[in-house]
């Protein structure tokens, strides 16, 4: 009987999920006009500092073990928030890239395709890093190295800069500056 309830519940869940998807509440709309309201600010240097191995070693050496674990847990949770923001931005930039890759201008289309690829890789990378960070928050003694995500993010910001310069040469690099 329990199995029956589980399967019927799974069936109802998938129907509800399909209904929401059909209503357009689960997938991005093609309209890019509201994209500005969705971008979240990400301070790259702050993230790098937060995940600095030197800082971690300094904290480990100077704090009592229990306090270190508490601080480390807070650092991991804060870092996870940064990464979640980056992942959200990547999803938004993906839409921008998708729109750009359908451009008739070959250079814009190529930059758009590159942006799509990079955003997808970053999104995948973010998923894994967030997983590691949450594991780190549960077990603060575990060594993590998610700082490399910062480099990936910087590369993507550069791509957006190239894209915006192609469209608006006079307003260079304002989009990546805001990321």
């Amino acid at each position, binding site marked *: *009987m329990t*199995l*029956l309830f589980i*399967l*019927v519940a*799974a*069936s*109802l869940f*998938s*129907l509800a*999920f*399909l209904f929401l*998807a*059909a209503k357009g509440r*689960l*997938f*991005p709309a*093609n*309209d*890019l*006009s509201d*994209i*500005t*309201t969705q*971008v*979240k*600010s990400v301070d790259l240097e702050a993230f790098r500092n937060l995940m600095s191995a030197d800082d971690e070693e300094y904290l480990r050496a100077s704090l009592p073990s229990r306090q270190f674990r508490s601080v480390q847990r807070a650092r991991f949770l804060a870092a996870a928030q940064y990464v979640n923001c980056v992942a959200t931005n990547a*999803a*938004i930039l*993906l*839409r*921008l890239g*998708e*729109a*750009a890759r*359908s*451009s008739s201008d070959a250079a*814009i289309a190529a930059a*758009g395709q590159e942006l*799509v*690829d*990079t955003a*997808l*890789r970053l*999104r*995948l990378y973010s*998923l894994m890093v967030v997983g590691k960070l949450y594991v780190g928050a549960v077990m603060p003694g575990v060594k993590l190295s998610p700082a490399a995500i910062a480099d990936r993010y910087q590369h993507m910001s550069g791509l957006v800069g190239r*894209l*915006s310069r192609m*469209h*608006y040469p006079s*307003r260079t690099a*304002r*989009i990546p*500056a*805001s990321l």
Partner: protein
Amino acid sequence: MNFRRFFWYYLWIAPHLLQIAVAVLMIRRKLFRDFPLFLSYTLFEVANFSALFWLYNSSRFTVEQSTYVYVAGDAIGIALRFGVIHEIFENVFRQYPALNQLGRLLFRWATGVLLVVAVAVALSTTGADTDRVTAALFVTSRAISIVQCGLLMFLLLFSRYFGLSWRNYVFGTVLGLGVYASVQLATTAILTQFGPNFRSETFNLILMATYHCSVLIWLVYFLSPEPALRPVKTVPSHDLEGWNQELQRLLQQ
């Protein structure tokens, strides 16, 4: 002919007539290039219906012969539906070279995991004690529903996480298949638990009505035009300024 009988005939015939329209639309819009297996599935369902309808209304064939044709047709239909799901995966990931390999790998893993779940569910079944063949058919049908429904949900969840955009007809195909697989999962789970005679006519009508809905979904999505992507070059200049303002607002929080 009473209303119930008329309704039953309607639910049996109408979806297959609509599937002819779906096939014609696919051919006219050249969608068969992207979805050859879905077109094959659609045409097969129409042919299978024609054969079964002829058998049902002919006195020359025994019930046993009709059952063989029904079971064989059902098996081919299930195989084709798996093919269509694989085709959808390929179609979605083809647009994203960065995810292509990962998508294929995840499809294999998801299929493997869902097969294990389906087999485990089948082995743990303690349903009504009916004849073994019918019970085996229901258990198999339920296992197939678990895998198909699971694969479609996995694809939707994966796409949602990555923010992948879907073409209209691809989404419509998933929606139609997903609705049918979900309802089939519930009905087969109930019938496996309580036995095939438990309100079988009602559940049969529910499944037929669901299939009708699925075909309507396909028809609507194949008929509706593809929404054009708004080109990036038309983004007004004040949008860029909005990015800066948003940054300042977020920094001051």
